[in-house]
């Protein structure tokens, strides 16, 4: 048992953070300043081949190896397509047929296949079981919302109900019947789109993994890695706040010497550290398919969601009027954190799931106890 990252895991996180720092537009104030070369730069770094097994030309790493890199993606407000592509890669590695793996993974490894995940619908809640999207006779009809980075994606991972239950379907973005329309929303840089699927014909190989199983893995891995994006954002906001607290002076002293602020910074630091404990464990549990994978994932996403919200809000407060300015760009982190809070299950939804998983665990323990007696 060792709850510390090894040197390679740490150095990967540093490398990704440094690369993203070369693209300052990512965290600039304006919402239309794209950083068009960042995808290519990450691809050249080899980010997309890391989760791909060696047989398909990758490095054969697990999500846990990328945790700190994902935190860096979060803290640098990297394009949402990056995380969607990593999630799709994991799902294809874990649940893909040999044919799916052989055709898709080498393209992913080279950075030539960009994904978006089409999950939620405007008239349904966060529970994937309630979705209305349906595949009937090989034809998909669905109306999805908030599909991050859909306009830039070549492949859509669509969650829809098929004959055998809720499944994950691979749908090329350019096939007939797919309409992608950018939303107006609080964070245009996340590239949220409405995506309609009107009578889209799916071929045999569209279904990824067994219905039920693949979506469960997707939710757990996504929740865990989105928790890491959130800790990345929270960490960056806290650093910014502390830096400001040390330099900004009022009443003849740095504002960080006032206990009211110092104490809140301390609380934020403790919250962040705790969110990291939950997140790192969850990513490990997802990587290992541990028996408490779902519980750990929901714990991490719910907890990190609360913490990122707390820290974004407090960091703005601590900057006073400056914090409310467009140009300081704190709003960029506020926006992205709120989008991520609502991606792959809200805090409330994950809390409910965490409770249910915990009660089921206790019931199983009691059952085992009775059986032993």
């Amino acid at each position, binding site marked *: 048992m060792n709850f*510390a990252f090894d040197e390679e895991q740490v150095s990967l996180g540093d490398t990704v953070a440094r690369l993203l720092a070369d693209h300052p537009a990512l965290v600039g104030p304006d919402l239309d300043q794209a950083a068009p070369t960042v995808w290519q730069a990450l691809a050249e770094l080899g980010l997309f081949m890391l989760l791909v097994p060696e047989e398909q030309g990758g490095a054969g790493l697990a999500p846990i190896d990328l945790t700190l890199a994902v935190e860096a993606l979060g803290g640098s407000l990297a394009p949402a397509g990056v995380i969607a592509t990593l999630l799709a890669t994991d799902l294809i590695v874990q649940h893909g047929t040999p044919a799916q793996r052989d055709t898709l993974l080498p393209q992913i490894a080279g950075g030539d296949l960009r994904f978006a995940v089409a999950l939620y619908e405007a008239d349904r809640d966060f529970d994937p079981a309630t979705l209305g999207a349906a595949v009937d006779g090989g034809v998909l009809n669905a109306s999805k919302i908030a599909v991050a980075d859909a306009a830039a994606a070549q492949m859509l991972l669509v969650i829809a109900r098929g004959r055998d239950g809720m499944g994950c379907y691979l749908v090329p973005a350019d096939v007939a019947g797919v309409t992608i329309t950018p939303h107006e929303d609080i964070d245009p840089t996340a590239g949220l789109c409405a995506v309609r699927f009107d009578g889209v014909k799916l071929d045999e190989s569209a279904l990824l993994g067994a219905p039920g199983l693949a979506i469960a893995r997707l939710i757990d891995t996504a929740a865990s890695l989105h928790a890491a994006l959130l800790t990345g954002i929270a960490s960056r906001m806290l650093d910014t706040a*502390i830096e400001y607290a040390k330099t900004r002076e009022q009443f003849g002293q740095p504002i960080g010497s006032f206990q009211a602020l*110092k104490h809140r910074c301390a609380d934020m630091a403790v919250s962040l*550290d705790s969110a990291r404990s939950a997140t790192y464990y969850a990513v490990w549990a997802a990587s290992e398919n541990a028996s408490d994978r779902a519980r750990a994932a929901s714990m991490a996403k719910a907890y990190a969601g609360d913490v990122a919200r707390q820290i974004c809000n407090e960091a703005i407060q601590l900057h006073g009027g400056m914090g409310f300015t467009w140009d300081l760009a704190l709003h960029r982190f506020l926006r992205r954190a709120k989008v991520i809070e609502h991606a792959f299950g809200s805090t409330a939804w994950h809390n409910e799931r*965490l409770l249910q998983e915990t009660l089921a665990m206790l019931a199983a323990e*009691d059952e085992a106890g009775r059986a032993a007696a």
Partner: protein
Amino acid sequence: MDFNYSPAETEFRLSLRAWLADALPKGWGETVFLPSDEHEQAMFRLDWERKLYAGGWAGINWPKEYGGRGATLIERGIFAEEMARARAPEPINVIGHNLTGTTILAHGTEAQKKRFLPKILSTEEVWCQGFSEPNAGSDLASVRTRAELKGDKFIVNGQKIWTSFGQYSQWCFALVRTNPNVPKHKGLSFLLIDMKSPGITLRPLRQISGEYEFNETFFDNVEVPAENIVGDIDGGWKIAMTTLTYERGPEDALGRQIRFKQELDQLLRTLVRHQRGAGHAIDEPAVRQKLAKSIAEIEIVRLNALRSFSKLESGGDRGADASMTKLYWSHAAQNMYEVAMDALGPIAPLSGSDPQAAALGKFQMSWFQSKAFTIYSGSSEIQRNIIGERVLGLPR
């Protein structure tokens, strides 16, 4: 990063689990519980500690030469998990184990280690902590209890307060003033005091829970052999800081988490069974959200401790981040007992042996006790000062 346990670690877990199944009374935690009388309960808990020692389960990560098991902090983590799983009683000699022992291991002479450590492990000697005084709490360095070196003895005069478990203790470690003429941090010494020494009087203090766990301790010309000093004369502040680092550190947090987790699990089981209207107490949506948050927070107390263990195992320093550990567990647990009271609904105020009280009034008692969590071992405000200044580097 790997939560898989090695075969040796798993073997450790299984042998402990088997031992526990035999060592605890039949029906423990289901039909048989701790005695409700405070004194009987203390005796029961002391007996339990002796049993752990006899079974070879005391001082998991202490060196073998002083009676410990010489295992790793990881095994210490496993130990905590198994104690929680078996719903084992909380020890009383925590101060001996977590504060005296660790401080003597870090700063004591070889003779002190040989003399004191084995008896802590065997619970022959229970310890209490003589730091706080009526006028020196958060501002610990302003303690006034005087110790004057006369020949080969210190003569101690003054008063300590809030001395937990003083009534069960054979020994006390105390921070005393040996030099009043220098800046306050520079005139302190750290003494080991035999509680049987003539001139010591204890006066019990009643707590908000109604219990009498802590005391006032008076020292009237108490003689302490000069060799019972840890560290140098007037060098006691440094020693006391080591004590505080352990008092606030991950071993302490993990030990407490055992109890929080047991009680949270018990709460959940109670709510699942407790009928309310057409359903059960667990069905209340507003309460479910709060319960989930507490489940996360109590689990994170454990995860934070394990993360600190891994840092320490790979050579990291103990330092100001102990304050982060302490600040987190104290508020997580305090919230949890508030949630427990929310969740119990109309029966929440019923306590003790009232026939309608849940779980023999355990949640109400713990709710009272939890109010101390954010005060002792350094109040939350003090922890936040330390974190702000020493971890985050904010100006004073």
